């Protein structure tokens, strides 16, 4: 009992005087805890918002969706519902070109024509406010802000959609249940359904989706409605969802998304753990004498160890508390940062669960990582109080050390598995981070050892002294190289991958490669389109036919039977039900490679059905092989085919690629549209030809490369932001370790600085020694991070993205240089009082 009380008193008394160490130690833990608390609270905020606005996510109780106009049973069902007085709304969406008449700019958009009182729940927010209700009062359009920016237009301007003109009445601020990033390719334009016909856009070949939204008495009625009509809806290829099932979808999607973020937070926390271990090491080194005295005065090993374990715990707690506060601040900024990924408005509030978890996890990580260095407290000999030069006993492998290592590994494992979207992902993450750390650690050690070995013996004194400082007893060199190197590694890898993706894109769009796609061309428009493109500088362009079809049967078994067949082959339902856009031609194109069978040459033998070539992944999804027979349904006309070859397709290339290619002389007379790719160098002529084409042929859709570029940058930007934040965390942890390393050797440095200055060294020389030391330290970390980043980037680009790899050497060099400069600055700053103070003041300090 005496022991416990003493431990507590000592911890509280010592803690009062140790504010500086607390700052250092707590700082390392705070950042990671902040990330976890922010993400955990944010997840709870969103889940709550989703639940509270469950019905407004859909705006209705039930939604029916189809890729063709409702017909047969589905149509009958909707008619009878209306007769029974059930509120039914319709939304028909299709892609089209929007032309801003004021600027002449065009953009592919997603038009949504609304009929009825949708939404029944929730509000569609507009700016200026309350414009949704007057959508049907005239030729009004409500549009995404991004569209206006792209077109250079503003509210009040005229927008042409097909043959009709609309006034932009407001910008869309938020539509419940829609995630901003989904509309990146096709910005939304809402109009009233009454005017769709005027546009002349809903023709053959346009990819329209049809939605019906129902208001029912409640969730139970919705579930019952869907259950009752499911078999008929399945037959009609109509998908049905209730508000509750939509909520569930969102919840799952969002849980996976935030858990991905949580893994990033966890990385920060584990790096914080390493920094904490380093800070505890510093702390213990400073306490050696105190520990020895306590032992002399009769403190047992256990009492003294417990006293410092408690101090470590208190510091961990302070760090975790600071982290919680920081996390709550970050939580407030997340809704706007992640607005692109959020389906609804989120109101942050303080939540007990994530806060308690943050405190607990922070405290635990601080203890688990602090335990190893703390264990040395047990081995400090009391004799040390009598004489300084007591040899420290060699580290021994006792049960406590094994337990400490187990605590660290167990912590990584348990946290990863509980924070990850799936246990398997967590395991992989734990393994990944342990391996990465191990590789970084081993490389750091090798680098440090090499520096020592290759150390220039005839270098100037300042350089030799600076480098020698890295190898002073109890140095933190490897820790610093590891944590700073980790940050550089993350930033470097991110940059290498991002650069390669963008470079690939730039390469694909450079030179004479196509930068404009024109699709939905009707056969009678082809000549005019090609002529206009040629006049704009595109030269001769080819038009590729697209013939929409569905699979009617495989091997003589009808699609309905296949869809209900749950026994043998689990064929992809998506692949069975989808509408295919097939083409026909007599040659392979550059982005394709034949991997099975043979390409057709010459005329088709009369005995065989039409020959087709199937893309390899689709063949897997459908479970079909060379020689299998597929029956296709072209707008009611069935065509028998046989698989004559299987192709591999490089989808990454900006080309017209197809899942299924028919041999010529089969589909020529089937209803079809055409697509053409063009290259027009001059951006202005490209914009002009788009305007002219849209004015002339309002049904055409055009995709300019600049749109794709914009989308790609937006997507990469969102992912990169998260990774950058994590890298910033790890670099901050690295800074904590640098400061800690400077603190460890403070006493030695004091003596050296006195000695040097007594021997006549000028302040500038002392600074230069420091500069050399930290510059070398920063360079080692940079080299480590950059080299491993190049390696990881190469692996990712080459084997994961399967792209050509180029090394962005100048940015990596800049990163390395920047890191070195920052490390040097922090190091000198942390030691500044040694430089600033007069030798006499330092001497007095030492005498005390």
């Amino acid at each position, binding site marked *: *009992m*005496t022991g416990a*009380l*003493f431990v507590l*008193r*000592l911890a509280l*008394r*010592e803690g*009062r*005087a*140790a504010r500086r160490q607390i700052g250092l130690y707590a700082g390392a833990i705070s950042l990671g805890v902040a990330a976890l608390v922010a993400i955990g609270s944010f997840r709870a905020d969103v889940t709550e918002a989703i639940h509270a606005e469950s019905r407004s996510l859909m705006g209705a109780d039930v939604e029916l969706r189809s890729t063709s106009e409702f017909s047969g049973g589905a149509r009958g069902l909707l008619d009878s519902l209306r007769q029974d007085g059930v509120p039914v709304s319709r939304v028909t969406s299709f892609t089209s070109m929007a032309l801003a008449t004021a600027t002449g700019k065009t953009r592919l958009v997603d038009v949504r024509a609304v009929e009825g009182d949708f939404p029944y729940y929730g509000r569609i927010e507009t700016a200026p406010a309350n414009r949704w209700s007057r959508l049907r009062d005239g030729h009004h359009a409500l549009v995404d802000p991004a569209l206006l920016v792209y077109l250079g237009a503003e509210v009040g301007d005229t927008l042409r959609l097909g043959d009709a003109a609309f006034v932009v009445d407001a910008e869309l601020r938020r539509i419940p249940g829609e995630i901003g990033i989904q509309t990146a390719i096709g910005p939304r334009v809402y109009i009233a359904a009454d005017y769709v016909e005027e546009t002349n856009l809903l023709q053959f070949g346009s990819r329209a989706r049809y939605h019906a939204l129902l208001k029912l008495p409640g969730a139970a009625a919705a579930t019952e409605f869907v259950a009752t009509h499911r078999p008929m809806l399945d037959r009609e290829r109509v998908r049905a969802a209730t508000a509750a099932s939509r909520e569930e979808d969102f919840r799952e999607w969002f849980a996976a998304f935030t858990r991905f973020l949580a893994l990033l937070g966890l990385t920060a926390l584990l790096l914080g753990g390493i920094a904490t271990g380093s800070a505890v090491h510093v702390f213990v080194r400073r306490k050696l*004498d*105190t520990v*020895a*005295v*306590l*032992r*002399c*005065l*009769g*403190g*047992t*090993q*256990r*009492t003294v160890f417990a006293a410092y374990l408690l101090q470590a715990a208190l510091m961990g707690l302070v760090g975790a508390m600071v982290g919680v506060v920081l996390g709550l601040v970050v939580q407030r900024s997340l809704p706007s940062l992640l607005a692109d990924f959020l389906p609804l408005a989120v109101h942050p509030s303080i939540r007990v669960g994530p806060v308690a978890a943050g405190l607990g996890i922070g405290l635990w990580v601080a203890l688990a990582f602090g335990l190893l260095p703390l264990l040395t407290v047990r081995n400090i*000999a*009391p*004799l040390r*109080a*009598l*004489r300084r030069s007591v040899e420290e006993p060699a580290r021994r492998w006792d049960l406590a050390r094994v337990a400490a290592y187990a605590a660290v590994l167990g912590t990584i494992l348990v946290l990863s598995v509980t924070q990850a979207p799936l246990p398997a992902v967590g395991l992989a993450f734990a393994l990944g981070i342990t391996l990465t750390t191990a590789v970084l650690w081993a490389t750091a050690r090798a680098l440090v050892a090499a520096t020592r070995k290759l150390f220039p013996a005839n270098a100037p004194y300042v350089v030799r002294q600076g480098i020698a400082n890295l190898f002073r007893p109890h140095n933190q060199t490897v820790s610093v190289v590891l944590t700073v190197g980790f940050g550089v590694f993350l930033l470097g890898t991110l940059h290498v991958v991002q650069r390669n993706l963008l470079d690939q894109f730039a390469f694909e769009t450079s030179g004479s490669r196509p930068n404009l796609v024109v699709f939905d061309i009707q056969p009678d428009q082809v000549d005019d389109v090609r002529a206009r493109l040629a006049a704009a500088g595109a030269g001769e362009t080819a038009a590729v036919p697209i013939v929409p079809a569905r699979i009617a049967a495989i091997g003589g078994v009808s699609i309905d039977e296949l869809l209900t067949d749950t026994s043998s082959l689990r064929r992809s339902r998506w692949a069975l039900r989808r509408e295919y856009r097939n083409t026909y031609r007599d040659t392979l194109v550059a982005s394709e490679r034949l991997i099975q069978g043979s390409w057709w040459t010459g005329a088709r033998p009369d005995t065989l059905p039409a020959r087709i070539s199937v893309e390899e992944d689709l063949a897997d999804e459908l479970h079909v092989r060379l020689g299998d027979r597929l029956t296709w349904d072209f707008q009611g006309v069935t065509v028998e085919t046989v698989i004559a070859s299987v192709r591999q397709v490089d989808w990454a290339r900006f080309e017209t690629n197809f899942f299924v290619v028919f041999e010529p002389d089969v589909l020529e007379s089937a209803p079809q549209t055409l697509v053409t790719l063009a290259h027009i160098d001059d951006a202005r002529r490209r914009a002009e030809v788009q305007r002219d084409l849209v004015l002339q042929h309002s049904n055409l859709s055009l995709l300019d490369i600049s749109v794709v570029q914009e989308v790609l940058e937006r997507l990469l930007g969102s992912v990169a932001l998260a990774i950058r934040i994590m890298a910033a965390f790890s670099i901050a942890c690295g800074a904590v370790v640098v400061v800690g390393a400077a603190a460890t050797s403070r006493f030695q440095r004091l003596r050296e600085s006195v000695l040097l200055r007594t021997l006549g060294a000028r302040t500038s020389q002392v600074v230069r020694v420091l500069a050399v030391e930290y510059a070398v330290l920063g360079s080692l970390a940079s080299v480590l991070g950059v080299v491993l980043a190049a390696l990881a980037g190469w692996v990712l680009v080459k084997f994961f993205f399967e792209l050509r790899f180029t090394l962005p050497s100048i940015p990596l060099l800049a990163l390395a240089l920047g890191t070195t400069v920052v490390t040097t600055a922090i190091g000198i700053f942390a030691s500044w009082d040694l430089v600033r103070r007069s030798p006499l003041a330092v001497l007095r300090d030492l*005498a*005390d």
Partner: protein
Amino acid sequence: MMIIAQDLEQTYISGGRRLTVLRDVNFTVEERGLVAVVGPSGSGKTTLLGLLAGLDRPSQGTVILDGQNLGPMSEDDRARLRAEKIGFVFQTFQLIPTLTALENVLVPVELQPSRRWPAAEAAAHARDLLARVGLVDRWHHYPAQLSGGEQQRVALARAFANRPKILFADEPTGNLDAETGHAVIDLLVALNREAETTLVLVTHDPELAGRAHRVIGLAGGRIVSDSAGTA
């Protein structure tokens, strides 16, 4: 007898060589004795002190303190014995830098396993001791805010805080100027007489050695002289 040292020998392995720093050390100290251990640097004085206080184990021989044989005791048992019966004064003062003067004096009180002091009583006791060394007004100061002589006086107060039967002092004036050292010696001897403690001190200081009842001379790890001094 308060202290019995029998056939003490201490050898270290240093750089692969056996180094004998103490051999054939035999002596006893009676209760309330005041013994000075003197000798040149490297003669084994501090090693002997460490062995007597149970800070280290002898390679051979026995130390018996107040009837208890240190030999079979574990590290922690010896720590408990020190908490109960032993006080320390160090050459470098060894006050805990993060504790105030009062708190430093309180450490041995709070570490005592056999007696649980009520907080107020412990604090009063520590204050009395600080008053005795003339520093009661400085009770809330940290070691860095005290001069060397003041630090050593706090260390004296701390040494007597657990009412030890034996006090070990390692060069208590070694880091002080002559005048301050003189004052500290006076205080040490006076406190020792009042508390009726057995005192073993290691010193270079002839003045301090002169105040001992008995002076044991060490050289090359052996006792080379053992004479009674003037009281």
